[in-house]
């Protein structure tokens, strides 16, 4: 199944390549990966989505923790979390089809961000499913170009993602556990 990991890393050169190299070396295929700044300038945050079973997911967490620049790993797959993807969709829009495109965008609460002579560019955020559905209905009208950011994720509730206690972290056999670096 698809697993979603939130990874906090030190904002230093080469850290992205360390994380990616680990997935390559351990033969895990990344579905999507996003990196960006956080509320702290010295910390970057990644959201990594990949296909893994429960055992593999546990080993991924343990291996990612071994990277010296990794501060925190959180597998939010089974947690209440907000997961969002953003897409820009450039779609053909002739005078005849334009209103239909606008109508569809409206239904999906997407926004039109650029209008050209015979095309519209639509911005949509949401779950992967929602974006997939919009793409599906726009496809017959003629997709010109699509770009998607990949998923970003955040736990629900007031608390920020926090590291689990170290003792709990080392109890690798518990279900919701993670483990720390060595």
């Amino acid at each position, binding site marked *: 199944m698809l697993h979603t990991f939130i990874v906090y*890393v*030190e904002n230093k*050169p*080469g850290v992205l*390549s*360390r994380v990616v*190299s*680990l997935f390559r*070396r351990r033969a895990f295929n990344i579905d999507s990966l996003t990196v960006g700044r956080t509320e702290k300038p010295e910390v970057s945050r990644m959201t990594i989505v990949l296909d893994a079973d429960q*055992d593999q997911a*546990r*080993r991924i967490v*343990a*291996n990612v*923790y*071994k*990277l*010296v*620049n*990794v*501060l925190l790993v959180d597998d939010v797959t089974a947690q209440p979390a907000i997961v969002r993807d953003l897409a820009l969709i450039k779609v053909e829009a002739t005078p005849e089809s334009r209103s239909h495109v606008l109508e569809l965008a409206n239904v999906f609460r997407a926004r039109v961000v650029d209008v050209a002579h015979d095309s519209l560019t639509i911005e949509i955020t949401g779950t992967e499913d929602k974006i997939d559905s919009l793409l599906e209905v726009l496809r017959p009208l003629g997709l010109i170009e699509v770009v998607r950011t990949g998923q970003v994720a955040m736990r629900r509730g007031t608390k920020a993602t926090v590291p689990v206690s*170290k*003792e*709990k*972290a*080392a*109890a*690798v*056999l*518990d279900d919701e556990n993670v*483990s*720390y*670096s*060595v």
Partner: protein
Amino acid sequence: MGGQKAEQKTPAQKAAADKTTMTGARILWECLEREGVKQVFGYPGGAILPVYDALRHSSIHHILVRHEQGATHMADGYARATGDVGVAIATSGPGATNMVTGIATAMLDSVPIVCITGQVGSKLLGSDAFQETDITGVTLPITKHNYLVTRADEIAHTVREAFYVAKSGRPGPVLIDITKDAQQSSCEFDWEAAAPKMRGYRPDLSPAKDAYDKALELIHAAKRPIILAGHGISVSGAEHEVQSFAERGSIPVAMTLLGLGHFPSTHVLNLGMMGMHGEAWVNTAIQEADLLIALGMRFDDRVTGNLKTYAPNAKKIHIDIDPSEINKNVKVDVALVGDLRKVLHELQPRMEMKDRRKWLEFVRNLKGDSAVRDIQNLPDNGHLYAAHVINDLWHETRDSETIVVTDVGQHQMWEAQYYKHDRPRSLITSGGLGTMGFALPAAIGAKVGCPASDVWVVAGDGGFQMTMAELATIVQENLKVNIAIINNGYLGMVRQWQEFFYERNYEATPLLSPDFKKLGEAYGIRSIICNKRGEVVPTIRAAREHNGPVLIDFQVEQEDTVYPMVAAGASLHEMIRRPSPIVETAGDE
């Protein structure tokens, strides 16, 4: 031969160095000294020259190697023999890439080394300048961590971090790549301010409380437990703890290749080595066990054989400091993630004394006819077998502080089978990576680290030729290293696989070697040929008595085979044993 050596610094001189301005190169040496480094192994070149120029201000002894791979293996051998961090130095480009094999070797066997490489000037980075290689990129997957340093004021804290990372937790190699301008430019040196502050690195793990309870439950309930003892024992310094743990529970101990010596082989609870070339009874005992207690080992495929049939009746307890090793190959019932020594300190007082006489007797009986099949006990057919050499070497050197450093292949397995190691760190061998060419340079490192020990190289004729250029290093450094070449004219282990699995198609395994005696003598090393069983002991004695390095060319039986053997992918109890014709001549059956 090198400039005048600076005197060791007094504390006052050290304090005076603090907060003074100096070049990055001098800061590097200053930091290495403060990390306790006495010797480094290296090879100079353009991009590291400022560092070499500053060496005259340092009390550190530099050992000039003949190939950078040798430098890394020496640092590795030094670290394995002493437990301290070994240091290797090379220039950029080819100097750095030559280190790759040695770094990977240290990575797979969790050995703390720090490799320092010169790099082209920071303004030239990425321009494909002369001798530029992206060595931090190259070594990313084979180092525990690595650094690219482009400014002098980054050197001190990088070196301190590197040493801390290399030796803490599960040890491993760390590489520091320093640009030439960072070596040349100056800044204020402040040792205290350079202390490691690492938010993302926490090597101090300890298991959850209830994991101990679960482990004790399993141990108390077990009727047929076995300890699987690995390299982690010496890394953690838990030799005594393991011994009293085994004794308290009357639990027999099987060892991995890198575990040999960490539990005394003369101990009544010692079983011997497990795995592909482990003793047949050890592997059978593992398959019969109802509990495996893995101490600082990682269930390597050479140890488990086919995972589907591995120890089918056993519950498993895994004690290791690396959480990513848990459930990697073998699914375990209880994991205690932490420092082995500390974990055993917690576990042992709560452990019930047990008498497991029946189980121990059962295991003892598994030995069956092994002694009869042992080549040591076969009648002398006039041939010299490698096992004879190793067995005699053990008898001759067992009373002294001897470190045996092996290469990789048949001789390595025979060493593991016939040299009975009683002391930790008395066997140095490349286990995980299986690096041919490891022995000679690693032995140099071991001798430099432990000058009082007798150091013996045991190498095959194949692996020895990979790094034999380091003979010159032995002579230049005037090191008393004894070299036993187990010369069978083949790449023996590969030939053995061809014999078993490729219909004796000996493709590319017959091996032409130089006259090793003449070769040794060309370097000024006393060299002896030995090809008779009766001459082995006198030759070893002569070598030990000689005041200087000695090379012995042991010309042994060419097509001998390491038995027993578990074929790759076969179940642990399906062993190929020494065939019966030889056994019959021994009067068996």
